[in-house]
Every structure is written in C-alpha cells, then in structure tokens.
C-alpha cells in the first residue's frame, strides 16, 4: 500500500531585536551564564512583563511577507507547565488570538510548484537553556529566557521529504531577508519542529508524531526519513501509531520519546492578565508593509529573467537582498567602463560575485556583507570586470587585482602598474620570453614539431609562469606555433 507522508512544521525564529520580549535585557547569543537576566525574565516574585514593541513590528513584517492576515487586536496567553528552564512555571505565548492567521508559501521542489499554507503566526518568549550531564546535576542558564520568538505553524500539507526541506530553507531565507531573524541555525536562531504521519488508503489520515530539536536542514531530512521508516514499519507490521513527541539526537541519528507524562499536555491556557492587547491599526500595518523587501523568490525570478542568470547563480545572489542590490549596481556601472555586450553584463558580474569575490571573503575569514559596500564599492568591482572583459588583464591577474582593490583605495590603473598586472600583449616583448622558454625545453619543442599539439599548452604555461601570469595566452600560443613552424625546415 502506498502511504503518503503528511508533514507539517512549527518554525521558531528568534527575533532580531536588541532587547528581550518582555524586559530590557540584551538579546545576544552566548555570554557568561545568568548575566543577561533581570527580575522579569528570571520570573522573580513581583516582576511583571512589558512588551517590546519591536518584537511586534518584526512579527507583523514576517506576517506580511507570507501574506498572512494581521489581526487588529491580539492577546497573549499563559501556557502552564513545570520545567526548570521555565522560571514562571508558564510561558507567555499566544493562543486563541494570535498576531496573524493564514498566509503561506510557494516553493519549487524537484521542478514542481508546492504550496504550503499556514495556520497562524504568533510571538512568544523563549525559555532558558538546560545543560544535562549524565550522572551529575542538570544546570540552567537563563540568558536565553525571554528572547522573543516568532512561531509559524504550517498546515500539514507537505507530502515529501524533499518538499519539506525546500520549504524549510525557503522560509528561513525569507525571514532572514526581511531582517526578522539572523537565522543562524547553529546558534539556535531558527529551530524546526516537525509533525509527520502516514496517510493510508484513499487518504485516510494517520496519527502524527512530533519531532523536536531539529537545528539543521540535514537533521530535518534525516529525522523525517527515520520517522517515516519507523511508522511504515509499524503499520506494515499491522500495528498502530501512537501519538508521541520525540527528541531528535543528531549525533546518534535516533529519535527518543520525550520526557513527559500524559497530564503534562494540559496547558490550561488563559489570557495573560498582565499584558494589554496588541493593537495593529491598518495605518501601522501599511507602514510596516513598506519594510517588507523583495522576497528571495521574486528576486530569483527577476535575476533570471531580466539579467539572464542561471537558476543556481540567481539563487545564491537572491539569498541576500544586499547582494542583489550590489549586483544590480555593478551591472549598471559595468557598461560605463566599456563592457560593451549588454547580454553578458549580468552573467559576468554574477560570476565574479559568486566565484572570486566569495572565494576572497572565505580566504580572509570575512562575511560577504563585510566585503561588499565600503570595502569594495560596486562600481569598483564593475571597473575590474570591464578591464578583464576588454582583455587588459588575464584571469589570474584580475583575481590578484581583486585582492589589492579591496585592500587599497588607489585607482585600479595605479594598482595594475604598481603590481605589474597588465596583460602582456606586446609581441616583441613576448617573443623574447617565448624564445627563452623554447630554448629551455628543446625536447618539448621537438615533440611539438613532430605533431604533439598538446604541448602548446605546456609551453604556454611555462611562458605564463615566467611572466607571472601576465602574458596574453592567445598571443603566446600563436608565437609558439609560429616559432615551431619557422625552424621547421
């Protein structure tokens, strides 16, 4: 029997605010334990929550980015349960009146368009962090307690693991591009819980199980594979799936049922009396709508259609709207530096952005956003690209120039002179070098004359070496062939 997986997600993203959601403690990852705390986020007796307006703003921006309906009034609720990382014994979250409802995302997976609908978006506070040490006491650090979270609950509409992973990547991309979250998964900036069941014959729904603690796309894939296999095995063996909440262990590649007793799931929600309703007027919503940037999907399409970029390259650039802006600036400038072919402008700029510039950033241990902008204005890169396209530089020289262009503010032409990067095209100059290389390699020259054409490349390479990569390879090749012919008599 074919059993189709039915997959949904709860996405938790830490909001990029300066301070926590209900107090003014710093919202920063790390730090000495229990140093970013105050009576409010410690849940001390007598302390009261006060809402950080920026958390609401970012929540609304996220809602607008996914076409959800923002409620004009929403409220907070207390969700009660006992756990050491939950100092008040309840979490302040939203329940029946969330910040936004509906909305969804269209993604492309394996060539098909896939739609994932959302049931709601809401904001809530994060809990502290536990440290478990087998055989010893467990410890709690409250620095993370009170960090604002955006929770997105999807409808269980995904039907394959590939679709699920593509969705997870895209929702992260969107939230990051909107500035809602840093999205740094290894820091816990965005976390995924997934629920998965197997539908039976004729779509009869299965019992879902929930898997928590998925902190990477790889974990999501592995956990889904693992759970779907497990459920399939149970059902094929004639058994029934019991609802469970499982904790994924990435190291072991296993999911374990979570510590909880049946009673723990009665959260006894009620409206939070310490906080007034969140009011979102239509004026405010429209103001915030202007803050929703062009989303990655739209940017990708535009880069492909308007600039002629290949899908994969477009995808890389569209991940970060600052790169998109930078790219477009470079494309605009490159024409004014003499890059004549308009069709190739986009692909050329993209190639440099995605290739050598990224390589440079990586080599220097920098983030792309540190390299773009003041350190290498788009126009400067455009000039370099145009020089290369016009043949003033070899590829090697151009890459070397890139490094110097970042380190110095001097005009590119000065740098080319200073570091001797000009491509050598003067035939007289090159003939001398060619002659000396051929003298040094009589065997290879002889073999070339006998017809081993591939030695052109070797000999050209030697000339390139001798000229520090500055010789124009085409001319070198011609000169070598001419020299080989000349003495052929």
């Amino acid at each position, binding site marked *: 029997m074919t059993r189709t997986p039915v997959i949904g997600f709860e996405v938790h993203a830490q909001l990029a605010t300066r301070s926590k959601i209900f107090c003014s403690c710093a919202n920063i990852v790390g730090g000495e334990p229990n140093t970013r705390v105050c009576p409010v986020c410690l849940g001390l007796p007598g302390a009261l929550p006060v809402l950080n307006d920026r958390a609401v703003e970012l929540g609304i921006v996220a809602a607008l980015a996914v076409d959800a309906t923002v409620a004009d009034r929403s409220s907070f609720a207390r969700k009660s349960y006992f756990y050491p990382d939950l100092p008040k014994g309840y979490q302040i979250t939203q329940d029946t009146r969330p910040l936004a409802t509906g909305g969804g995302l269209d993604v492309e997976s394996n060539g098909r368009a896939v739609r994932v609908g959302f049931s709601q978006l809401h904001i809530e506070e994060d809990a502290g962090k536990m440290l478990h040490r087998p055989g010893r006491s467990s410890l709690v650090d409250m620095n993370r307690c009170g960090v604002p979270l955006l929770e997105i609950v999807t409808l269980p509409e995904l039907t394959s693991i590939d679709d699920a992973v593509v969705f997870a990547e895209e929702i992260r991309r969107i939230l990051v591009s909107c500035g809602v979250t840093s999205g740094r998964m290894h820091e816990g900036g965005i976390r995924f819980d997934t629920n998965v069941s197997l539908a039976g014959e004729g779509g009869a729904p299965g019992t879902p199980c929930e898997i928590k603690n998925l902190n990477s796309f790889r974990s999501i894939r592995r956990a889904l594979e693992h759970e779907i296999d497990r459920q399939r095995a149970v059902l094929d063996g004639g058994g029934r799936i019991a609802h469970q909440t499982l904790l994924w262990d990435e190291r072991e590649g296993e999911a374990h049922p979570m510590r909880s007793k049946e009673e723990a799931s*009665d959260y006894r929600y009620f409206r939070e009396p310490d906080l007034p309703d969140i009011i979102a007027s239509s004026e405010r919503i429209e103001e915030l709508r202007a803050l929703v940037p062009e989303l990655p999907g739209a940017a990708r399409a535009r880069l492909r259609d308007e600039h002629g970029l290949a899908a994969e390259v477009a995808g890389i650039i569209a991940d970060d709207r600052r790169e998109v802006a930078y790219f477009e600036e470079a494309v605009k400038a490159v024409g004014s530096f003499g890059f004549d072919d308009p069709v190739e402008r986009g692909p050329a700029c993209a190639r440099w952005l995605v290739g050598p510039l990224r390589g440079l950033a990586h080599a220097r241990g920098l983030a792309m956003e540190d390299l773009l902008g003041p350190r290498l204005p788009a126009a400067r890169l455009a000039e370099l690209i145009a020089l290369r396209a016009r043949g003033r530089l070899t590829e090697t020289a151009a890459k070397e120039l890139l490094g110097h262009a970042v380190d110095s503010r001097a005009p590119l032409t000065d740098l080319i002179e200073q570091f001797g990067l000009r491509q050598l095209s003067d035939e007289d100059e090159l003939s001398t070098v060619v002659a000396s290389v051929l003298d040094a390699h009589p065997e290879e020259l002889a073999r070339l004359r006998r017809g081993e054409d591939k030695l052109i490349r070797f000999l050209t390479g030697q000339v390139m070496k001798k000229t520090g990569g500055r010789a124009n390879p085409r001319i070198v090749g011609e000169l070598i062939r001419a020299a080989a012919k000349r003495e052929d008599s």
Partner: protein
Amino acid sequence: MAVSIDEARRAARLARLALDDGELEMLAADLSAVLGHFESVAELTSAGAEGRCVTTPELFASGSDRRSDSVPGPRHDVVVRQDAVGVMLTAEEALRNAPESEDGQFSVPGFLPDEP
C-alpha cells in the same frame, strides 16, 4: 458537583503538589463544597439572563467580543517598551536566592530530557 479523589490527585499532579491521602481526601471534599456552591455562576449567562448583561465595548480594554478568554480591565493606553537594553543583574545577584547552584547556573537533580 462532587470532586473525586482521583480528580483531586490529577489536579495535584498538574500543580506539582505533593499531598498525602488524607490531604487529598480533605481537599477533594473542600473543592466539592466550594465548586458545588459555585455551579450557579453558569446561570447568570444562561437563557433568560440576556438584557441584564449588556456589555459595552468601552468598558473592556481587551475588546468587545464576548469570548471567554478576554478579561475586563481599566481603560488605558496600550503600553509597550522601546527596544533598548537596560540594566541587568550580575550572575551573583541572579543566583543569590537560588537554593542550589553550580558553576554560575541554577542546579536541579540530573535528568535527561528524553527519559520517559
């Protein structure tokens, strides 16, 4: 409306209160007496009571809907904070009242989150 010992036990478990059988029995009886008396609260909003309970929107800060999870409160502006970092406690101050702590963290008897 009688509250059974089992129901009392369940409530005690939800509330993480260790109670011996004697206390459970007594509290179950107390709850029964009190809740029995309070059953009538549902009458107020049952059929026949409309007209007496007109709720006007301005009275309630939390909105004019009659959903049972909104709370009547005073009129006041929506109060929020600006997103700025303020004064925080030192770890010493944070842990000063902690019954048990270790390495600058609150400590509890060891457990693993995936132990049933």
